[in-house]
């Protein structure tokens, strides 16, 4: 019965949750036929598709593979942002996509890749962290969180290999137990196999990232104020300018849509938790940024 805080294991055995050999009636209505059904079933189906069908699916399903998400350390922690555009081929299919997803009180996942997989990974991750805390009466460690995400990305490998469901996220968190004088913000970058690397000062991914990675490096090394020394407003203005730059050169990345008042999603992760910057504040920063 006790799954030692492992949510994936709990899901796998959810249809046999028992107390003293008696199956509970309450749980029987939430059968989980297999681990991560909404991920696994498409994976299984995709594996048997004829080659020509795979080709068709790869163009219709890869909605938000093209995108730009970026995270950087600033004075109080981490600032992390993503554009709002979702595309299918050369078409814009959605202009209010949320690609920066809070996972728990002090961590955020910024996704680039196939949205169905990415959102499901974020959802599983969120439930996994909550389940660990509730069942084991303590927060999952930073390393535990990183490994959980690694497992999910690795599980998604068949989809990634077929070119229809790769997910390359940035995972950022603030380690709350850190000494108050130390910036506890941490940024991790993943590859499609689930390996994670800590990026000390910044990370960016998605199709627009190639246009701004060099800029980030330049700002961090030779900028007037180093990224880590920026206050919230400076960091926000910088990150908005970066997204604007990416959108200038990458058709799949949207900038600020003044007509429809659609702003990028920008969140901060500090000692006090995850905070979403308001449109009003972003508007003020845009006035400074342009």
């Amino acid at each position, binding site marked *: *019965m006790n799954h030692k805080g492992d949510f994936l294991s*709990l899901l796998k055995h959810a249809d046999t*949750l028992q*107390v003293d050999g008696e199956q*509970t009636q309450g749980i029987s209505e939430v059968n*989980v036929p297999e681990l991560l059904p909404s991920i696994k079933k498409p994976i299984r189906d995709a594996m048997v598709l004829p080659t020509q069908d795979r080709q068709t699916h790869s163009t219709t399903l890869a909605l938000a593979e093209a995108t730009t998400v970026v995270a950087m350390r600033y004075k109080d922690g981490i600032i992390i942002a993503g554009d709002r555009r979702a595309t299918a081929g050369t078409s814009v299919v959605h202009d209010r996509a949320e690609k920066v997803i809070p996972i*728990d009180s002090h961590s955020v996942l910024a996704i680039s890749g196939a949205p169905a997989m990415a959102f499901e990974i974020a959802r599983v991750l969120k439930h996994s962290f909550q389940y660990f805390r509730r*069942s084991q009466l303590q927060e999952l460690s930073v390393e535990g969180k990183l490994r959980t995400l690694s497992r999910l990305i690795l599980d998604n490998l068949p989809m990634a290999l077929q070119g229809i469901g790769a997910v390359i996220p940035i995972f950022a968190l603030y380690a709350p137990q850190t000494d108050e004088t130390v910036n506890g913000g941490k940024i991790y970058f993943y590859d499609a196999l689930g390996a994670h690397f800590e990026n000390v000062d910044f990370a960016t991914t998605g199709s627009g990232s190639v246009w701004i990675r060099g800029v980030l490096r330049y700002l961090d090394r030779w900028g007037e104020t180093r990224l880590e020394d920026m206050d919230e407003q400076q960091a926000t203005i910088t990150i908005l300018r970066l997204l604007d730059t990416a959108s200038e050169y990458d058709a799949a990345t949207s900038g600020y849509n003044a007509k429809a008042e659609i702003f990028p999603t920008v969140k901060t992760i500090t000692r006090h938790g995850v905070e979403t910057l308001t449109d009003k504040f972003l508007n003020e920063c845009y006035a400074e940024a342009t």
Partner: protein
Amino acid sequence: MRDMPYRWIEAIQDRADYIEDQLKPGSPVVGLPYADGSLLLTVSKGAQKIFEVHDRIALSAIGHPADIERLRMLVTDTASVQAFQSATEDVNLHRLTHYVLAHTFKQAFESIVGEAYIIKMLLVEIGNGAPETQFTHINYDGNVKVQHESGVIGGTEEIETAMQNYLTEAKNDTPPDLDSALQLALKTWAVGRKLSQSFADAEDSNEVSEDEIDEVINTELEEGEIEAGILDNSLSGDTKFRLLNKDEITRTINR
């Protein structure tokens, strides 16, 4: 044994007596609404007794620690799976109580060849937009009692009645702030604690004076620690539960 009704009823009665004897010295738990949510309070010696079940649901219990842990995991697992399979909003205390816990308690209690659960459980849910808080009391035999103004569990029914009476007398029309709720909950806990001690010696009156309440609190806090968990609607995230830390509790109690 079921084809011999008298023996079965006798066995059930013996079992009930045994469980009640075991529960009698248990440290009571008090559940109270306050301005921003709901509070659960008890005094414990080491082991945690107040737990988060889901975003808006918390749990406490008295009884055997192994039974508490087993049933806590059952309800936590169920809530977690349901939230994932459907949506967080679909997890509610009514479903968890009636489809998972109550019949599990009843089945264990009436299966006289198996082990019984030595447990009484108090769960609280704060409404999602709904104005009412719900306290659900589940007895070891699976009986469920739902209340909205407060909830208590104590070693015996008499103790619980005395605690409820104390709360009724202290009742105010407007929900108290957290500090006042903590102080009232601690005094109500002391009423229950005092009675559980006196019942152990003799069948005394269930009236407890304010002096006795203060004395019980002072004595019990020499070895035990106040444990308090809140479901706080003002918290910004989905999860509304948090345990109060020692500083917060001490500051309030010494006020």
